């Protein structure tokens, strides 16, 4: 069909899609061309088009700072940890909940476990603060004295944050992923388990040779979706929960918070857009890479 004919036949479709097209252009596509800012020495007087080109100088600056290494390392390590935890913990939870014989209790736990998912990061930062505040926090005022331990200045102690952040992240997400894995487990045909019981397979054996292999597609998709975003940290978690404590930056600064700060607090457009571009490009490459790996193993599990 010629384009004109298609347009005439389906003109209504284009009208219907128009609002979304406009929003996608403004919100997603025009900013994609804006990555050119990273190669410019931007100034507000000349605007985006008028500002002079600066080649790779913004990137040179970025890599000269020690921030470049810290934020890359933090983003990758934390996200890798989160992906592992968001797989192992919810999977274990789903398998155990599935064994719970009281439907009512299992449902109740599932409901309660889901609560943190509904709370915004601002609220979660308050919850964390109620425990970790230096002067009044529950940990410093009650728990640590009870254990006979010294108080800890949580928001000034770097060493604890590589544990606190994964803890908070898992706490927020475990209900969400547990539901997904449970749905998958319940979809498994009971007959597999019946046959296994007749053969005398132990619970552990059933889990490792029936449950996990059969829900592999869901596991792969969930993990793939997260790997694709491994370069994008959860801004809220790293910005709200450590409460912008500068002392903690070596262990809490990630690419997203770095870009935000250098741009909107410091006002360095060049440096922040260079970091942003790096994030976009590497992230894009990682989506393709992980998808390619999955395709090679099992085509049906791939995202695209």
């Amino acid at each position: 069909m010629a384009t004109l004919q298609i347009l005439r036949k389906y003109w209504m479709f284009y009208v219907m899609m128009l609002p979304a097209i406009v929003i996608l252009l403004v919100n997603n596509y025009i900013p994609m061309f804006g990555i050119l800012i990273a190669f410019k020495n931007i100034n507000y007087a000349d605007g985006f088009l008028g500002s002079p080109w600066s080649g790779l100088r913004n990137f040179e600056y970025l890599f000269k700072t020690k921030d470049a290494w810290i934020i890359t390392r933090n983003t990758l390590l934390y996200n890798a940890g989160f992906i592992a935890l968001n797989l192992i913990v919810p999977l274990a939870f789903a398998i155990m909940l599935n064994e719970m014989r009281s439907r009512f209790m299992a449902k109740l736990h599932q409901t309660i476990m889901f609560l943190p998912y509904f709370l915004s990061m601002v609220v979660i930062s308050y919850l964390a603060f109620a425990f970790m505040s230096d002067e009044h926090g529950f940990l410093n005022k009650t728990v640590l004295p009870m254990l006979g331990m010294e108080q800890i200045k949580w928001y000034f102690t770097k060493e604890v944050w590589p544990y606190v952040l994964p803890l908070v992240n898992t706490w927020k997400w475990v209900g969400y992923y547990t539901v997904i894995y449970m749905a998958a487990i319940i979809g498994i045909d009971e007959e597999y388990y019946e046959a296994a019981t007749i053969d005398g397979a132990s619970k552990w054996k059933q889990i490792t040779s029936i449950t996990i292999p059969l829900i592999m597609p869901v596991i792969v998709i969930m993990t793939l979706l997260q790997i694709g975003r491994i370069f994008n940290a959860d801004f809220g978690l790293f910005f709200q929960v450590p409460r912008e404590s500068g002392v903690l930056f070596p262990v809490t600064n990630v690419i997203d918070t770095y870009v935000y700060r250098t741009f909107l607090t410091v006002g360095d457009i060049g440096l922040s857009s260079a970091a942003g571009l790096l994030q976009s490009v590497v992230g894009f490459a990682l989506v393709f890479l992980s998808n390619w790996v999955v395709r090679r193993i099992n085509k049906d599990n791939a995202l695209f």
Partner: protein
Amino acid sequence: MEAPMAPSASNPKNKLSRPAALAIHLFFAMYSLLCIIPVLLIVMVSISDEATVVREGYQFFPSAFSVDAYAFLFEDARQIVRSYGISIFVTVTGTLLSLIIMALYAYPISRSDFPHAKPFTFFVFFTMLFGGGLVPWYLVYVQMLGLKDNIWSLILPLMISAFFVLIMRTFFITTIPTAVLESAKIDGAGELVIFARIVLPLSLPVLATVALFQTLTYWNDWFLSLVFITKDANITVQYLMYKTMLNIQFLANNSTAAAAIAAAGGTFKFPSETVRMAMVIVGIGPIIFAYPFFQKYFVKGLTVGAVKG
């Protein structure tokens, strides 16, 4: 669809041993407590007496209670009411518009006879893979559209989620029979009529799911306020909570500011610790009440979404 739940009871031979079953029960009882306790701590602090909190720290069972914090918030309730208004407006308008706009886009790309369905599917999918980053995105909203301090800057950026568009598209493809669409066309119905009269009513499950998730997204968003909003008139409940934390911290740690307020005739005597927590309770309110009810639809929604398409 029922919420996913344990069917293993149907196979009586395959039961866990009693100690193992008990251990699982205990484990989940403890984990459930771990989910509730932080919220409970905040509630208790918010109804504690300020002097007691300063002396004993944040406690689950403070030795003295007081509702001073809520009285203090209530005294100057204008900003809270205003912020609630903004949050509700943003959430309702945003959710409705985003639902309509996403469905209007998802339907054409779900039609196999539409020759441009593929490129337009890619057009939305690509936004999941690549983005320009914060800086150019911010400049588009502030410099090109001039939406700084504008309430639409809290609505537009969250309007289209590529993921939800693709889920809707999959739903349309798999649940709406082509024959129904064909016969409607033979009866002379236009595409818009078919969409509104046939497609939408048949798609309530997916529409409800997306609406629910978008409601939560809009209500919980604070990032857009952080980036775009500087004037108090347009701040949402979430951002108000964030600012309360910062402001109280600023006043509490800054004796000059406190002195300045006192010199200007203002009083700096307010229950700062308990007010902070009361503010969270005020902000958390709607979610806590809505969540047990919401929760079961979220579970259904997740199960719809998790099915690969």
